[in-house]
């Protein structure tokens, strides 16, 4: 029988990979999640702790998928601490996905915003010329650089890392790199996921030059199915209309890059 994506499926964590001291990838077997489109997400239940929206990470084994989590608050730390053999619940996949253009592509990821970018890399064509920009605070927090290079082994490609403190790769914010790249190269598609200010600047850089750009948004999410309204950005619901939005659309949105909502639904400045 076909699985109802709104029902919670319990899976067992089979492998835990330490990406950095604060970032881990949890691998589990699930055919549905192994095939999700880049940009889609799952609601992940950590029994007794919380349920979180998570982008679905790839696994190099067929039939398997993963979540990459940074320990931050109690909920993400709860997921971070899940050990091999422990169970979590998943429902979904939810949301739309990136429209993949062909030709010269620029992918920009910051922190765990790299997750949908890695999945997107598994969908690029061998003829695409792909540049990946990875933003991190410091050397300790860089991850997925090797993975990006591995996934692009058969493509013309560049993987460039920037760190805010200059301890690895180029020094400075990844958005400065974005600005330089979109100025120098006419990209056929720009894709971004990460902290919202980073996405806002990337969308501005690309959209102002008439370049096709899409961003995968993140918001406070409770239901994931378009009922609770917590994830609204202007009149859009991230869980149902997104997570991926075009730069054209986002440039008209009054809240993108400026406000997010707290748990009570009050708009707060970024």
């Amino acid at each position, binding site marked *: 029988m076909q699985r109802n994506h709104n029902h*919670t499926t319990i899976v067992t964590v089979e492998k835990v990979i330490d990406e950095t001291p604060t970032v881990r990838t949890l691998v589990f077997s699930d055919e549905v999640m192994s095939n999700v489109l880049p940009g889609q997400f799952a609601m992940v239940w950590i029994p007794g702790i919380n349920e979180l929206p998570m982008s679905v990470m790839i696994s190099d084994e067929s039939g398997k998928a993963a979540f990459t989590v940074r320990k931050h608050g109690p909920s993400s730390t709860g997921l971070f601490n899940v050990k091999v053999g422990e169970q979590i619940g998943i429902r979904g996949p939810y949301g739309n996905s990136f429209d993949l253009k062909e030709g010269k592509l620029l992918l920009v990821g910051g922190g765990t915003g790299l997750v949908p970018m890695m999945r997107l890399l598994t969908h690029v064509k061998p003829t695409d010329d792909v540049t990946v920009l990875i933003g991190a605070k410091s050397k300790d927090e860089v991850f997925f650089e090797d993975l990006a290079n591995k996934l692009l082994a058969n493509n013309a490609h560049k993987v460039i890392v920037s760190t805010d403190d200059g301890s690895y790769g180029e020094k400075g914010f990844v958005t400065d790199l974005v600005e330089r790249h979109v100025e120098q190269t006419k990209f056929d598609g720009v894709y971004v996921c990460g902290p919202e200010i980073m996405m806002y600047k990337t969308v501005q850089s690309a959209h102002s030059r008439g370049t096709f750009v899409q961003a995968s948004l993140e918001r406070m999410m*409770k239901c994931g199915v378009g*009922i609770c309204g*917590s994830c609204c950005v202007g009149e859009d619901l991230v869980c149902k209309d997104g997570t991926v939005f075009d730069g054209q659309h986002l440039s008209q949105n009054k809240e993108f890059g400026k406000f997010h909502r707290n*748990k009570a639904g009050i708009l707060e400045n970024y």
Partner: protein
Amino acid sequence: MEPNLATSIGPISLDRPVMLASGILGISLDVFNRLYRSGAGAVVTKSLSTEPWEGYPNPTIFSVKGGGWINAVGLSNPGAEYFAKMIEPNKDVPIIVSLVGSIPEDFEKMIKQFENCKVTAYELNLSCPHVAKVGLEVGDDPELVKKIVRTVKNSTNVPVIAKVGLGTTHYLNTVGTAIESGIDAITAINTVRSMAIDVQTQRPILSNKFGGLSGTPIKPIALRCVYEISSKYDIPIIGCGGISDWEDAVEFFLAGASAVQLGSAIGDNWIDVFNEINTGISQYMKKKNYSKIEEMVGLAKKS
């Protein structure tokens, strides 16, 4: 001639009979505008409290096998004062402000905060089944219902609706008390207290353990309640509970409702559901030769 979808719920007039139910999508004026453009006759806000409430941690929602949802969002809302400022610019969308509180003074205070807003009606949430000291705990106390309805009616000239549900006090008695106290209309019903347990981890799924069941499983119950209320009392009724298509909506009209609200159907079919239901109702009316919604209201009671 095209049938007219306009309807009156006592003193409340709407161009279309299908509204957004409280608790659903209700925290942004931009989203209200979108819902109105998508065919909603009115939007009912999230239930607002005197102070902002964060609600419960996730999981706050569970999809029931065979249909329906159990939710315990915990009445998260930005508070009446913030909300009133947000909707102040609204001119076009019929907004029904849902209020939740423990004592009459809570409601009185909040209504003052909406003085500069265009409010179509207030809906008093007397039936939320998953938050202590408000909702059902208020609805189950006839003296408190009486005091709250009287206070609210004395505080505003805007029509006031009471939303009732299945608690320990028989909902028909709560309806009776609300009518005696001057209520203008009744919304029936709210979600029904329920729960879900995961057999693998052997835990209740919702963080609050208990939540409110909504969607198709409660439709026959809600329909029965509307029929019973309209049989016993002469009060305008808004039907709510498991309405997912035009046939469900028409069933509620035939049982005695002058309008309906929906929520879970949005989780199942997204926002397009409003226009789909409006179109279905219109086609049904054409076929049956009705020119107005009110010609259908309560027809099932004839037999």
